């Protein structure tokens, strides 16, 4: 029964390509190649530290906890945002069947040096989002002799977001942030939703307005943030829920909320979206210009446009789906 333990530990000589850039010295970024003997168990962060310790001590990156909880060491490995500390190198080398891997800084933030990006702009956006609990006195006692009562179910509405470590991976992957530098980004909107969904909070209106002002409706729901989040906090899902909450809260005067309402209303009514009318619903009377332009374009190509939307069959099934969604919502099951 007792057997000597002989762990299998492999080793591959790999080429680690690292993007370098020191603003005071270089005009633009370039790549340096380092040969590293990658062993079983070696993380990207360990490889970076090994290079810094033995080959080039000027290599610059951030790292702190090295255990996936502080969020300092997010970088892109072969293009994908990851935490360097919790990413094993051997499986990447084996998967790609190459002995080379590239390491670059996160995107959508200015590079300060090598793999270090400036996260200050993101922190500023976060700060504007009122990312804190404002005591709801119906829930939170004035005295420290008592605790507030919050059910497991109420807690579960936002618990998944509290895993967020503000590493910035989602911000790097975000299509909306790359298109519009003023967009708040997935992590900041996630954090805003975390508080707005907390029954102990009383600040809903102002925070909601801050979210709307900072691009709540700009998210394209491409869900890349969900794919890259190392803590599985699903920012795009929080954004969806925040949008619904903003409509429920009476913030109807945004293009996004009008579009969302038109979608749900149309599907209930016709079984499909009344696309020709969308520009008018979203943008008001000036939407007619878009409709005229579209009509002219279609006519030019010999297609007869129609402003009539036909009602599709299966209305009763649609109604059933709507009823089911409402039922789940009232139970709160879709919140987790």
């Amino acid at each position, binding site marked *: 029964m007792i057997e000597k333990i002989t762990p299998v530990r492999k080793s591959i000589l790999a080429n680690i390509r690292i993007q370098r850039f020191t603003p*005071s010295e270089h005009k633009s970024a370039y790549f340096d190649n380092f040969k590293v003997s990658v062993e079983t168990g070696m*993380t990207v962060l360990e490889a970076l530290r090994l290079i810094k*310790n033995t080959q080039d001590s*000027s290599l610059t*990156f951030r790292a702190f906890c090295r255990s996936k909880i502080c969020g300092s060491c997010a970088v892109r490995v072969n293009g994908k945002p990851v935490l360097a500390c919790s990413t094993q190198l051997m499986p990447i080398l084996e998967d790609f069947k190459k002995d080379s891997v590239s390491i670059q800084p996160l995107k959508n933030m200015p590079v300060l040096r090598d793999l270090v990006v400036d996260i200050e702009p993101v922190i500023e956006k976060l700060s504007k989002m009122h990312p804190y609990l404002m005591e709801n006195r119906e829930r939170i006692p004035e005295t420290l*002799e008592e*605790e507030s009562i919050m059910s497991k179910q109420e807690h579960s509405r936002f618990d998944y977001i509290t*895993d967020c470590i503000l590493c910035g991976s989602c911000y790097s992957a975000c299509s909306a942030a790359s298109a519009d530098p003023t967009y708040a980004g997935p992590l900041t909107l996630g954090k805003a939703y975390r508080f707005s969904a907390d029954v102990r909070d009383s600040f809903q209106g102002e925070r909601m307005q801050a979210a709307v002002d900072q691009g709540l409706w700009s998210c394209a729901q491409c869900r890349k943030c969900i794919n890259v989040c190392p803590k599985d906090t699903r920012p795009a899902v929080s954004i969806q829920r925040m949008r619904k909450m903003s409509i429920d809260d009476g913030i109807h005067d945004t293009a996004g909320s009008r579009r969302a309402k038109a979608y749900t209303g149309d599907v209930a009514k016709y079984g499909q979206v009344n696309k020709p009318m969308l520009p008018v619903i979203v943008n008001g009377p000036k939407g007619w210009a878009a409709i005229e332009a579209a009509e002219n374009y279609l006519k030019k190509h010999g297609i007869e446009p129609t402003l009539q939307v036909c009602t599709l069959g299966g209305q009763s099934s649609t109604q059933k789906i709507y009823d089911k969604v409402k039922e789940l919502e009232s139970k709160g099951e879709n919140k987790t």
Partner: protein
Amino acid sequence: MLTYDILIVGSGGAGLYAALESRMEEDLQVGVLTKVYPTRSHTGAAQGGVNAALANLDPTDTWQDHWFDTVKGSDYLADQDAAEIMTREAPMVVREMEHWGCPFSRTDEGKIAQRPFGGASKPRACFSADKVGHVMLHTLYEQGIRHGVNFLNEWQVLSLMHDGQRCQGVTAINTQTGRVHTIQAKAVILATGGHGRIYWTRTSNALGNTGDGTAIAYRAGLPIKDMEFIQFHPTGLRRTGILVSEGARGEGGFLLNGQGERFMSRYAPEKMELGPRDLVSRSCETEVREGRAGPEGEVFLDLTHLGRERILERLPQIRELCIEFEGVDPIEEPIPIKPTAHYSMGGIHTDLNGQTPIEGIYAAGEAGCVSVHGANRLGGNSLLDILIFGRRAGKHALEYARNNSFTPVDTGQEEADAKMIASIMEGESGASIADIRRSMGNLMAEKVGVYRNGKDLESAVSELADLQEQFKMVRIQDKTKAFNTELVAALELKNMLDLAEVVAVGALERNESRGAHTREDHPERDDENWLAHTMATLGDDGRPKLDFSPVTITEFEPKARTY
């Protein structure tokens, strides 16, 4: 010159709580200087719980039970008045955290959930799944934003300044620009965390837990206390020292040596793998010393016999951790582990308000030592310590800063520090930071680690002196001013070398075994001679000078510590 009424150095739980407490009424300027971003701080890594006798799970629990557990756990070296304050105020600070939005897990009645913990007589560790430190840290940061606390992110503190009686401020370097600044402050609160990194790779601590605040206090002439007490955790991953929690052994994991023997049968035939932390750590270390380790000086935590299903169901996070950080799937093979330095009981000497002997200078959290942990900290008391004493230091500093004016300060220290940095940057020929650091870590783990003895400690002290000499010539290749992480590493190493020496000298002097300090040549606790705190100050010869001060005993007479 930058000026704050209150400057807090360090942005973990203690620092942020102190900042929040002193900024609550928004009448004073409060700054937090941190070498990272606040939410990166090591408080976030605490997974298990924060102790408070809320009695939500066991209605018979009282703060007095918690008080006794703490004193017993400390092997009677904790000051009982300090431990009393901590345990008595615990329910209040935990509720305050909750009122600020901290998402603790809930009981069926919607109250804060609690669970049992090692060394605790009742289930009193309040938790939030496995992320309680993380959610506490974020809550404090969020409330800090709300109340207008200023954050100086990515600044490295250099020196602490006082006129012999009162606080003047600090000097620090802005890492992003490379410029040295004087920051004048009526009060400074040092909350820079522990110094587990003196064991370099043999620690569960973050890369930056280099004891910066403790080291600058020591160099500024302040006493640092009980530094020889370092808690070791038996199951750190081989490569990184990251903890595999006790849960794995609780679920039925075996500890095996390189030969595949379940070696705990030699040391604790009844409790086997579930013996107390210090005993299990010593057992692992003995196996290694006696030549029964694996190929790289490791032993193994084996879960394979539990089977895939049970591991996936009961230990999914531990499995994920082993795969991500060690590249080992515990379903397939045993996990390679080594004992790892986990917590620094010692630190800057303070009174019950967190104040040092210099007016206006405070310390809190793992950087400070009141002392509530004595010779060995109880699980769940580190998060409590940072809340209680962060809060008390913040409160006291607030009153102090309201009632006192700034103490004049010139730029002499700033100039001296700029010169010191310039001279480090000139180093071209000596050993590298990595070499000195590795030597320091190895020698600390071997000679000032789980086991200690007079002969090894003496040689450790002299080897550390050699390393300090080598450091004077340290080689720096990166000559860039902005974001020079090699320079930061050099400054951290300087701090660690100073503290490592104090730890080794204290361990050599203390001729007894107590709590986490195990002397092979003095295996018994010796209350007659050693029921005392070690106080180290920097001597005129540049070496630590030791004094001893009595332990405050108010309620519990020292007894043998058995579980």
